[in-house]
């Protein structure tokens, strides 16, 4: 090559490396940074506010709030105990169930796959409510049953303890782990395990020494998701911990903010610490996962190897049934029972059972009626807008040639570092300071939901977009189709199954949400989560249980519809 040619290439190289950020990247980037950054900024200014707590933005700054936090380190310690313990337990359950369902020959696997997925969208609020009636030391159903059978007076379990909280958190978050780890297990190259078998490793040993380590990236990913979720968990600690003097950051924050005057700065400082903890967790996991070659998941579709565990299969079967019992059958059964009662205590006198509570929550009591309607609207809205937005970003990050794509992806996933309760507070302050009349509207709640659930939506859509061979779109381009036509005739039809699944997921999580809407919903904008919570505060067990059952039914219907549509073969 001639020297002149070399120089020309060099010059061209310099020219080409200038920054080129296209609108499909910077527009969502700016929007997201605005709607995340502004609340965060308000939170920070409040956390450092040492003057009048109700002045926005603060006028005098200092570290006094953090110093005060040092007196309450047990809040943070308890948060870590619950989140850490819950994650360990949840991952153990998740890995075991994922392995049992996807890698063994246990009978009924398909059914269990379905049943195990249900507790998650039902949600921690419903779960806490149910378990408070199952595991209360005196009159919890399990303890009553135990005493009736054995005659022993001391209760078998006490759900109002840190262990009880960890347990409840774990069983209701485990389905996510099963999903993430299960997906990885299905794509694993069976040759890796077969090799272990050839060298004489027994089945359990292979599972422990080969399968498990290879699943590490998926396990870590699921663990991170669980951990960050549990750090910000509100419903379970509040319902099971507060009355037994056990405070984690979220229920402590709740009391701080309910009083008069509300202690915004301390709550914000606490929130800040939570965000920092979450961010550290995310960073740690990313570091561990980076640079490890886990070449188990390739583009090829493997038929995963099913292992016949022999007589152990029945043990596994029992374990799986136990999980379904604890996470679905017992809780829903208890809520049903409680919803038919006339008084706060559950009795089995069939004659006294009534449907009155359902009539009350669905027809007589305007607040709950409204809450049901609003939650449905919100669910549809969150699903639709969330999916559209997430798809747009997914296509931009995976197909655009612009610079800044990785930044966009990271910013999109950023909301998962904000415990939802805290983000909602910052969001509330943000809309209070905005000139637009957003405050007190359902739209405000909708926007908050779209943002907090964006990582979930993006994760779903990005997974689907990545699977679409780029060549399919390139072939359309070469055939003469412009961007709009390609989107309409190639991209969107191929995305359809993913669109549906993601929409359904968003619908369900938004119906069961409480943390993000607790402070945002108002007179005309009551939604189910806060309504159930407020009802729990003042309404009596039978009615709360009825409302919780209604919420659960909505979610179950959505889940069923999606499954049916998926099974009827929505074309790939």
């Amino acid at each position, binding site marked *: 090559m001639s020297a002149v040619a070399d120089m020309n290439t060099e010059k061209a190289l310099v020219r080409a490396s200038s920054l080129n950020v296209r609108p499909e990247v910077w527009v969502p980037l700016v929007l997201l940074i605005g709607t995340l950054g502004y609340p965060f900024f308000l939170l920070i200014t409040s956390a450092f506010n040492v003057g009048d707590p109700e002045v926005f933005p603060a006028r005098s700054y200092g570290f006094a709030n953090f110093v005060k936090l040092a007196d309450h380190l047990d809040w943070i310690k308890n948060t870590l105990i619950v989140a850490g313990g819950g994650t360990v337990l949840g991952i153990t359950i998740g890995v075991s169930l994922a392995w049992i369902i996807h890698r063994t020959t246990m009978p009924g696997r398909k059914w269990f796959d379905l049943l195990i997925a249900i507790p998650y969208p039902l949600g921690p609020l419903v779960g806490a409510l149910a378990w408070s009636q199952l595991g209360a030391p005196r009159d919890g159903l399990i303890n009553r049953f135990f005493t009736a059978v054995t005659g022993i007076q001391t209760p078998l379990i006490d759900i109002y303890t840190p262990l009880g909280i960890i347990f409840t958190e774990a069983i209701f978050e485990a389905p996510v782990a099963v999903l993430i780890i299960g997906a990885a297990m299905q794509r694993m190259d069976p040759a890796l395990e077969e090799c272990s078998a050839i060298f004489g490793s027994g089945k359990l040993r292979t599972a422990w020494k080969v399968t498990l380590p290879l699943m590490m990236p998926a396990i870590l990913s699921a663990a991170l998701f669980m951990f960050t979720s549990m750090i910000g968990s509100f419903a379970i600690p509040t319902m099971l911990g507060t*009355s037994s*003097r056990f405070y984690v950051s979220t229920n402590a924050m709740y009391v701080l903010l*309910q009083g*008069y005057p509300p202690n915004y700065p301390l709550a914000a400082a606490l929130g800040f610490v939570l965000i920092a903890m979450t961010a550290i967790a995310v960073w740690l996991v990313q570091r561990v996962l980076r640079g490890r070659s886990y070449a188990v998941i390739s583009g090829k579709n493997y038929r995963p190897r099913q292992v016949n565990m022999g007589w152990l299969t029945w043990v596994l079967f029992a374990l799986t049934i136990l999980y379904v019992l604890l996470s679905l059958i017992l809780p829903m059964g208890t809520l049903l029972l409680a919803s038919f009662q006339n008084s*706060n205590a559950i009795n089995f006198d069939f004659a006294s059972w009534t449907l009155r509570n359902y009539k009350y929550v669905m027809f007589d009591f305007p607040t709950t009626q409204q809450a049901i309607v609003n939650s449905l609207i919100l669910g549809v809205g969150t699903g639709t807008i969330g999916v559209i937005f997430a798809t747009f970003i997914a296509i931009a990050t995976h197909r655009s040639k612009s610079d800044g794509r990785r930044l966009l992806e990271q910013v999109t996933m950023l909301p998962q570092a904000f415990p939802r309760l805290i983000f909602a507070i910052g969001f509330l302050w943000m809309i209070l300071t905005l000139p637009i*009349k957003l*405050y007190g509207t359902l739209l405000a709640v909708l926007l908050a939901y779209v943002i907090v659930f964006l990582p979930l939506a993006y994760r779903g859509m990005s997974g689907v977009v990545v699977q679409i061979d780029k060549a399919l779109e390139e072939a359309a381009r070469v055939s003469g189709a412009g961007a709009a036509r390609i989107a309409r005739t190639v991209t969107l039809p191929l995305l359809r199954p993913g669109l549906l699944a993601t929409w359904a997921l968003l619908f369900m999580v938004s119906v069961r949400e409480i943390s993000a809407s607790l402070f945002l919903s108002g*007179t005309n904008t009551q939604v189910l989560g806060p309504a159930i919570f407020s009802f729990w505060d*003042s*309404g009596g067990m039978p009615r709360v249980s009825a409302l919780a059952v209604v919420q659960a039914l909505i979610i179950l219907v959505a889940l069923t519809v999606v499954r049916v549509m998926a099974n009827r073969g929505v074309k790939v």
Partner: protein
Amino acid sequence: MMKDRKNSGLKLNRRQLMLAGSAAAMSFAMPHVVSRAYAEASAPGNVDAAKAEGPVVVWHGDQEADVVEYLKIFTEKTGVPAVQQRLLPGQALPKLEAEFRAGQTTGDLYLTSDSGIMENLRQQNRLLRYVPADMDAYGPEYRSSEPGYWTTYYVNVGPMMYDPRYVQESEAPKTWTDLLDPKWKGQIGFQNSAAGTSYGFWFVLKDILPKDYWDNLGANNPRAYSSSTQISQDIERGGLKIGGRVSIFQYVKAIRHKQPVKAVFPPLGVPSVNQATGIFSTTKRPNGAKIFTNFMLSKEGQTIWNNIQGSYSARKDVQVEYLPDINTLKLLLPLDFKEYKNPENRRQFVAVWNKMTGL
């Protein structure tokens, strides 16, 4: 300058004359002005105008079911529609801030257990003054010092409570000091520091009980609940032995449910708070708000409301079943509003109460 001073002693300064004149004029006019303001404040709401205004919005911290039931009857009787929203102060106040700044409130009436908050609102000129027809039925301790800004729509008396199925009557506490007995460790329930009634409890007892009472009580690990309904529920289910302070209507409701509960009214005094009702000055529905207030404070309204809830009215002519005669009780109400509103006291309360309940 020099000239003026020389002359000032001899003639009446024009300015002084004018001032004297207007002062004289004012001293004649003042009562007239005052009574005119009073007269305006007493003008009742117009029913037709109220109906045109749309449903009047009531913010409260009470039992939602009770308020809904009451509003239904209210609408039946007056023809004015109404909706409610249950908001604890922590949620209500930021809303109020924003709305006042915008000059419009979505809420029309505020019903709260914290008369200190009401006083603050009055000082900030955020309450509309309306003197209902029955103002005289309310003693001065049950209303704002200048009548018409806020009035007590029920007296939230706070006894102790227990269920004799789980606690022997002979063993049950009779006085506040009995709560310090270690046999109640971990078995006493209060509402958390966010509750106005908790503040009231501490405020009236802090100067009567020894200074170290709260630390000692804290050593007994009392549990904090977010509502007295929960305390009552836990007592019924056997999960809590003593309600350190419950709202009186919990007691009445429990009895109505055939629960064998007992309430304890210590002779030293039973902390009580005024549950106050007031109208926001920026209300869009002044007519509806006035009609609501008028009805709520009337004998009919008070009878209906307190019977629904099971609580004491501030009026002497309202009776509710199962309530012990109010004359046999020594009620401790916060009377020094200046101290009651004082943010220093509040801060101290929050610190003491949180420490006591393990937050």
